[in-house]
């Protein structure tokens, strides 16, 4: 039975996984990859399939688990965002050597822009580094098909294969038709082969040789592919300029050339940038005087093209070195290149007049902020007030927005709030400087990679306060459950893990659990914690600030609603807006005073505690 739905790119990938008979899917959430696993679960439930899914505690854990499933001969996949692949890199590099049995597809989603990531790194380079094939889809439909190709190549050549959709594939929407799905019942078997699965360095050399052979064979295969790698050269014709493109930029270029009716500009589309289809590319290069390479996010294909006299791209200054290649950027760079090569430029108006107009309006930049009623805001307020001179190391999650409140000084990578705190401590301690340090980390991030840093900090006797902002969910990426809830990815019951016991297990003796909505209490506890870390027999103090996220838990997150108003006592000092930054508190320009936006206010009542003039008060119920 055929169905047609408008699917998110990540939904199309989910569909492709199930069509390819994926039996095991593991993941750690991260924008723009987060919706793949939930979409698989949605389809598994609606189509009554048997695919096993899990939110793993981090990306390395996810990949190891999927790898084991592949070793039993099952088809497995693992998805993550591009920086997640850094965490899984140890597993990836080795898995490439060991090889697979059942198909193993790693989906690593890139974020050119970056819209929601620490870096603009290009997963295709990780594939090159690990020596595994990588596929680069241009839109959701192609991503869906490429999952199947990746699974087949992986199984045939016994090698992990990476699918690299960029954010504009993951978060694109497209109408997609599909048939009824069915389960893959292939049984797992583990055939012992220690020379492979537990290979020592001597055998690794042999495995490396095997890997190189596989890549060579796959390279040949990719050279003959026409559905994913193709060009539109006319036989016998020569061209002054050709375009080599892949991924999202290819789709953009196709639309622009069609709109401009430019048959004089041939395009070589590369869907499999590594191993690079050398033959097809040589054929293309031979009839073009110049070749402009347009790819996201970095210069993989540009490096792989050998003829430096012909190749234009990022290295020659024709394509921007950073930022997303949105349509207007590609349009402009193509137009500039055409003009430079004395070819016919594009026809049509540019957007410069509108851009100038918008710039002249000096529109306020809307920075993201913590939601109204967010428990992190209350915790941050208490932390800054209690430890104003501290260095605030923080981490990856909604709470990075604590930067707006002056309570986030650093954000390096997952778990670095703790490791940077211990690093700062020892750097200053060496100089005899007593530098207060407060680290903040979310519950999910702590489970992801907090414990190893905490173990290290305890073991090496670092002294700082660690506040675990426990909102009982993975909020930033869309409310995935954390291990402390004991709820698995598909909603079924797992085993709940106590954060307190985990922290105690890391060797921490000072552990206090509190509700950050009570700012006074939190400040008291932080004061005690500060004393404890300075005692000779003290250590690291951990404060677990526990209050449910308002998006994930809606009504139950505020059991006691307090309607607030601002009285005449208000001195218009803006302290509440600068230091608390609740979206519900604003300066009403007509009234000329600070006011509460009742539509936005969640009635959490936390602001009652923060006004220096005590001008924010609870409204008595009528």
């Amino acid at each position, binding site marked *: 039975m055929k169905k*047609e739905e*408008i699917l*998110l790119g990540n939904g199309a990938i989910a569909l492709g996984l199930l069509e390819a008979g994926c039996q095991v899917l593991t993941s750690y959430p991260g*924008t*723009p990859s*987060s*919706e793949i696993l939930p979409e698989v679960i949605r389809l598994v439930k609606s189509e009554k399939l048997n695919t096993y899914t899990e939110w793993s505690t981090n990306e390395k854990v996810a990949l190891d688990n999927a790898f084991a499933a592949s070793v039993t001969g099952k088809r497995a996949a693992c998805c993550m965002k591009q920086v997640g692949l850094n965490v899984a890199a140890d597993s990836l590099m080795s898995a490439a050597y060991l090889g697979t049995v059942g198909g193993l597809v790693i989906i690593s989603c890139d974020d050119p822009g970056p*819209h*929601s990531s620490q870096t603009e790194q290009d997963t295709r380079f990780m594939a090159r580094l690990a020596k595994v094939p990588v596929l680069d889809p*241009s*839109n959701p439909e192609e991503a869906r098909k490429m999952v199947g190709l990746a699974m087949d190549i992986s199984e045939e050549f016994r090698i992990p294969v990476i699918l690299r959709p960029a954010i*504009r*594939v993951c*978060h*694109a*929407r*497209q*109408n997609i038709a599909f048939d009824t799905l069915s389960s893959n019942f292939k049984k797992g078997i583990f055939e012992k082969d220690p020379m492979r699965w537990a290979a020592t360095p001597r055998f690794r050399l042999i495995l490396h040789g095997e890997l190189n052979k596989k890549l060579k064979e796959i390279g040949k295969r990719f050279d003959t592919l026409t559905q994913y790698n193709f060009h539109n050269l006319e036989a016998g014709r020569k061209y002054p300029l050709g375009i080599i493109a892949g991924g*999202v930029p*290819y*789709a*953009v270029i*196709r*639309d*622009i050339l069609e709109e401009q009716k430019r048959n004089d500009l041939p395009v070589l589309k590369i869907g499999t940038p590594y191993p690079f289809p050398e033959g097809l590319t040589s054929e293309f290069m031979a009839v073009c005087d110049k070749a402009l390479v347009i790819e996201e996010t970095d210069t993989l294909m540009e490096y792989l093209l050998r003829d430096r006299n012909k190749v234009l791209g990022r290295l020659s200054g024709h394509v921007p070195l950073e930022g997303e290649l*949105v*349509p*207007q950027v590609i*349009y402009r760079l193509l137009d500039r290149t055409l003009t430079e090569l004395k070819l016919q430029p594009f026809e*049509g*108006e*540019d*957007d410069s*007049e*509108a*851009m100038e*107009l*918008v710039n*002249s*309006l000096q*529109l*306020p930049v*809307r*920075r*993201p*902020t*913590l*939601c109204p009623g967010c428990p992190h805001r209350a915790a941050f307020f208490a932390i800054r007030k209690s430890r104003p001179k501290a260095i605030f190391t923080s981490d990856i999650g*909604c709470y*990075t*927005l604590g930067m707006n409140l002056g309570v986030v000084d650093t954000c390096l990578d997952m778990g670095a709030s703790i490791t940077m705190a211990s690093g700062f401590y020892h750097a200053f301690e060496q100089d005899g400087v007593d530098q207060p340090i407060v680290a903040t980390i979310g519950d999910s991030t702590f489970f992801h990679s907090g414990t190893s840093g905490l173990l290290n900090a305890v073991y090496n006797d670092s002294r700082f306060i660690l506040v675990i902002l426990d909102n009982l969910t993975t909020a*930033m*990426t*869309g409310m995935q459950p954390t291990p402390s809830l004991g709820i698995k990815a598909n909603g079924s019951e797992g085993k709940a893990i106590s954060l307190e016991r985990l922290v105690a297990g890391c060797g921490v003796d000072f552990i206090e659990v509190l509700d950050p909505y009570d700012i006074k209490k939190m400040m008291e506890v932080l004061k005690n914690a500060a004393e404890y870390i300075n005692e000779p027999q003290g250590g690291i103090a951990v404060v677990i600030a526990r209050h449910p996220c308002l998006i994930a838990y809606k009504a139950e997150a505020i059991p006691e609603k307090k309607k607030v108003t601002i009285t005449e006592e208000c001195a218009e000092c803006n302290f509440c807006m600068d230091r608390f930054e609740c*979206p519900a508190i604003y300066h009403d320009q007509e009234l000329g005073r600070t006011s509460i936006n009742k*539509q936005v206010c969640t009635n959490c009542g936390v602001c009652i505690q923060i006004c220096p003039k005590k001008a924010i008060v609870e409204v008595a119920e009528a």
Partner: protein
Amino acid sequence: MRPTVNIVLCGLGGQGILFMTKVLAQAGLDRGFNVMGAETHGMAQRGGSVVSHLRFGDVAGSLVRTHSAQFLVALEENEAYRNLPFLMEGGTMVANADSGRFPVDNVRVYLGKKQITCHSVSAEAIAQELGAPLSSNLALLGFFSGFDDALFSHSELRATITKISPERVREKNLRIFDAGLEKAIKEKGA
């Protein structure tokens, strides 16, 4: 081949841009278009600027290029201004903004020069009157559907909203959507 239709929807995180995009996308599919679109997820959803792109036709890419959108639908005034460059000459802008002071003079001049039609209404006030202050997205859709240059008729969008709204909010959604239409009819009559 039918010409491509490009729509840009914008506003702030939390205003319901994604739902609005979903309604229009589904209406496009039901009309028999191929649908392609792009959404903002992640950090920007926490109150930052959010833009959705929607394209009907046989296109390969999900993003609308500047100067090529027939429609700009804005849930917030400043975001309407910020995304002006997407509008093509002769396009239509629909904004949740007080028509008394929107758009500002120099924007009005630009719109005139580019023959861009502008419909604005305080969708927020409509939604608030019906006790659903967070549903200005539906009010704006209703308002949008009431003009002759609208992409979809009111009954088409109404059917889509009926289809994709969760049951517990369906009636409420339709009420707000209809109220938006009434404003458009009033404006046309005026």
